[in-house]
């Protein structure tokens, strides 16, 4: 034979990964990365700027005394810094992200491309309006879509996110009450106990007093409690109701609730965070709503970006429309678009300005690209698929987990922790999902369900993906029911183990500090 001396093992031998220690701190593809402040220096920079000429300063002595001392990185170092960090994140582009109430759906890249057109991304909010007619037209077109989908006569486009939209709606209600002469007396805002935290927080920010209403056994507003709360109605400003609600259920009595609140002299604010379940099938304007924010970063797929930005246009009824904030876009008879920016003339009843400039234009472009792509037919189909997917998950898991309520759900399936053995909690199930390669569901919200697990798959998951997810969660649920203690240590396979939140809160370290030189020397 001819001797081959280049032979090497081609079949693997098995050693447990846990046993392998590395010198670098990296683990294969998962690269270790220190803080910017530990790897950069203040002298380093990743940009090439021309040298200043050394002109005489016109700051008049109002000059910074102490340099920031902030480190920089060269471009290749910076790219690696952020790429390595990115590898420690889960993302919708990686897999199912069933965070209930958050509507983590696919974010089309077309939307990103459109938002970056110089005609949208590189225009200034205060340049002459004649030079931004296309931008104003886009805002007007998006406003038309939102008004049509909700069957509402007006929309305020400037709110920056859902909570800011809530503020917009409640400020409109406040202004309407003031205009009626009821501003001082009507201060009570009814808020179901299942509401998202932003609802009571917004009401309080607006100077209203929150009055909680109970949920009934079916997860909806307890009508008896509502009626009792409305018996004495002279101080009622309105109600803030989420629909579909935070339990993932449509409020069956919504028309009656709207009528009751109107009869009591109040207004109906609807939290539209869950619009994705009904868009294209049900129009909130047909339900008696006076104001509703729409999270473009939920229903209309603008990316969440790890916490924002969002956008929260707020539709308004005939009763509240006159009080809408400035600015808004009007189209004059000559076809020219115009911004109304001051509280006078056609905006003389406006409650004022909530924010600098005109709202989240970057999000408007993305949302409109999404709406145009889907169209009226596609949006309806999207809502139906979102609801179908959630009901499929509920059907597949209801035998091993505990559905919080009977019957079908809308776009999210809600379970309580009733099925778990003593000592196993919702958080353990959530963390075990991480090891299976999923982002956990929303946990411990809404507050009305013990150990709540709120699962929102959205419409952009295939059946195969849903089945894989259900298989994983089903097996975890069985382990939880049997009291499998290994769940308490999960996740085992994530970039980090469970973090010590007590320590973080007791002795907050909220920024990097240079190590104390004397201590370093002593070591």
């Amino acid at each position, binding site marked *: 034979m001819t001797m081959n001396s280049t032979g090497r093992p081609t079949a693997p031998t098995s050693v447990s990964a846990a046993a392998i220690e590395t010198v670098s701190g990296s683990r294969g593809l998962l690269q270790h990365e220190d803080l910017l402040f530990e790897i950069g220096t203040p002298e380093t920079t990743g*940009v090439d700027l021309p040298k200043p000429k050394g002109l005489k300063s016109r700051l008049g002595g*109002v*000059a910074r005394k102490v340099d920031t*001392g*902030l*480190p*920089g990185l060269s471009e290749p170092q910076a790219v690696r810094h952020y790429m390595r960090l990115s590898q*420690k*994140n*889960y*993302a919708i582009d990686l897999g199912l992200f069933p965070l209930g109430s*958050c509507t*983590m759906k696919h974010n089309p890249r077309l939307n990103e491309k459109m938002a970056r057109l*110089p*005609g*949208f991304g590189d*225009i200034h*909010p*205060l340049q002459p309006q004649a*030079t931004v007619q*296309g*931008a104003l037209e886009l805002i007007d077109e998006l406003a038309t879509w939102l008004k*049509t989908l909700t069957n509402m006569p007006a929309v305020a486009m400037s709110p*920056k*996110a*859902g*909570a800011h939209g809530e503020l917009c709606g409640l400020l409109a209600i406040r202004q309407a009450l003031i205009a009626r002469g009821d501003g001082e007396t009507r201060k009570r805002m009814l808020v179901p106990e299942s509401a*998202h935290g932003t609802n009571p*927080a917004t009401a*309080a920010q607006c100077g209203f007093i929150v009055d909680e209403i109970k949920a009934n056994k079916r997860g909806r507003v307890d009508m008896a409690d509502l009626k009792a709360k409305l018996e004495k109605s002279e101080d009622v400003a309105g109600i803030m109701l989420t629909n579909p609600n935070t339990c993932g259920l449509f409020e069956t009595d919504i028309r009656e609730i709207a009528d009751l609140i109107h009869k009591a002299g109040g207004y109906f604010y609807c939290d539209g965070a869950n619009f994705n379940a009904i868009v294209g099938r*049900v*129009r909130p304007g047909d339900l008696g709503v006076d104001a509703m924010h729409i999270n473009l970063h939920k229903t209309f797929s603008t990316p969440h*970006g*790890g*916490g*924002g*930005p969002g956008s929260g246009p707020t539709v308004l009824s005939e009763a509240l429309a006159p009080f809408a904030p400035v600015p808004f876009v009007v189209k004059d008879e000559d076809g020219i678009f115009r911004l109304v920016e001051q509280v006078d003339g056609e905006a003389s009843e406006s409650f004022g300005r909530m*924010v*600098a*400039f*005109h709202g989240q*234009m970057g*999000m408007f472009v993305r949302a409109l690209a999404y709406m145009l*792509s*889907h169209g*009226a*037919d596609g949006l309806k189909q999207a809502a139906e698929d979102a609801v*179908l997917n959630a*009901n499929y998950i*509920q*059907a597949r898991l209801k035998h091993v987990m505990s559905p919080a309520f009977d019957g*079908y759900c809308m776009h999210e399936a809600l379970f309580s922790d009733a099925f778990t053995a003593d000592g196993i909690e919702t958080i353990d199930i959530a963390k075990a999902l*991480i090891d299976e390669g999923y982002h956990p569901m929303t946990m411990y919200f809404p507050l009305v369900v013990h150990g709540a697990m709120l699962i929102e798959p959205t*419409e*952009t998951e*295939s059946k195969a993906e849903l089945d894989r997810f259900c298989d994983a969660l089903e097996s975890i649920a069985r382990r939880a029911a049997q009291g499998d203690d290994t769940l308490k240590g999960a996740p085992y396979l994530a970039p980090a183990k469970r*973090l010590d939140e007590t320590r973080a*809160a007791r002795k*907050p370290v909220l920024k*990097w500090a240079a190590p104390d030189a004397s201590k370093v020397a002593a070591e």
Partner: protein
Amino acid sequence: MRYLPLTPEDRASMLATIGAKSVDDFYTDVPEAARLKGKVPGLPDHQGELAVERHLTRLAAKNRSASSGPFFVGAGAYKHHVPATVDMIIQRSEFLTTYTPYQPEIAQGTLQTLFEFQTQVAALTAMDVANASMYDGSTACAEAAVMAARVTRRKKVILSGGLHPHYAAATRLLCEAQGLEVVQLPVAIDGEGELAKAVDGETACVIGQSPNVFGTVTDLSGVADAAHGKGALLVSVFTEAVSLGMVTPPGEMGADIAAGEGQSIGNGLNFGGPYVGLFSVRDKLVRQMPGRLCGETVDADGNRGFVLTLSTREQHIRRDKATSNICTNSGLCALAFTSHMTLLGGKGLKQLAELNHEAAVELADALTSVKGVELLTPRFFNEFAIRTPMDAEAVLAMLDEAGIVGGVRASRLFPGDHLGDVILIAATECTTADDIAAYADALKEII
């Protein structure tokens, strides 16, 4: 439809598993009268990528972009260069398409960048602690005012006459909704110092801005002393974050709260949003801060890690007693900010600031060399106000014909304040010598 993976067969088999006849079964709680029979009327059906792109590109083409010619608009948003790397980083799926880092084990990427962002913002503003961002500068300013009222248990908020009018409006709105009294000092180009005289024993805070909306830079130390002497706080506002590279920052002037706009670093103009609000405070005020905070800790193996912390301030826990209702903030814009800042480094930012300042100095000199043009801003960083012998709107329209976007007429921001002949003008590192010459030449022609 390209965004929907379910096939008709999938739908049928899933309905069978569920035991429902059709999706209509899921909507039976909807009142009969509100059930649409078909699609929402009045809207088009779905379209392919090409058609959507064509439509939106047509709209975009109707707008004049800031890069397409000499451009001098500032007043709260600024045309700066954003490195290509920044845009690449914020388009990484792992940052772009993830949620608020509620599950820290699989969000260390976002959390570490937030921790770095907070550290940078604290250092830039020379304050102790920064949060993980607000919507923008104007809402940061409004939140600072109501926070000051909470801290001092007082009800009066005083706004300088140099505060950006949009910031003043947003602040007034929130304060009045909470029953606070807002005192707006008269418009003054160099009036930040007046705040010291206005403060009294009922004042919760005074809000000053440097550089202010007319570009005037002011050392607010005297205002801080006056405020502290009466038990009030100083809120120091800025709209141009690049100024922090060379102008006296809030912390060096004794501010208790710094609130500003971070758009200038890493973020494009975007017709006004999304931007990123910067918010920082003195240590002792941390528990009254609005917004998210990221903190350092360790994981079960003892490795360093980061989590959202001090959440009992926030709406999801404290509900109607929360320090703010903010939930979604400006995460991705904060990432753009921090990654651009990382590329710059402290030295790079200083150099960038100097380039901005020099461009503005040269522009101011060139414009005031035109007979009849008066420079109104006594001390400035990268923007200033001029008075022209003609109506500002007419001047800007004629400049426009010469292909120059010459600034913002002051009367757009201050409609009733007799500033019809005043133009607010900004220069940045993007402003070239040719741009400056073109502006001065055109102005000479016009006047």
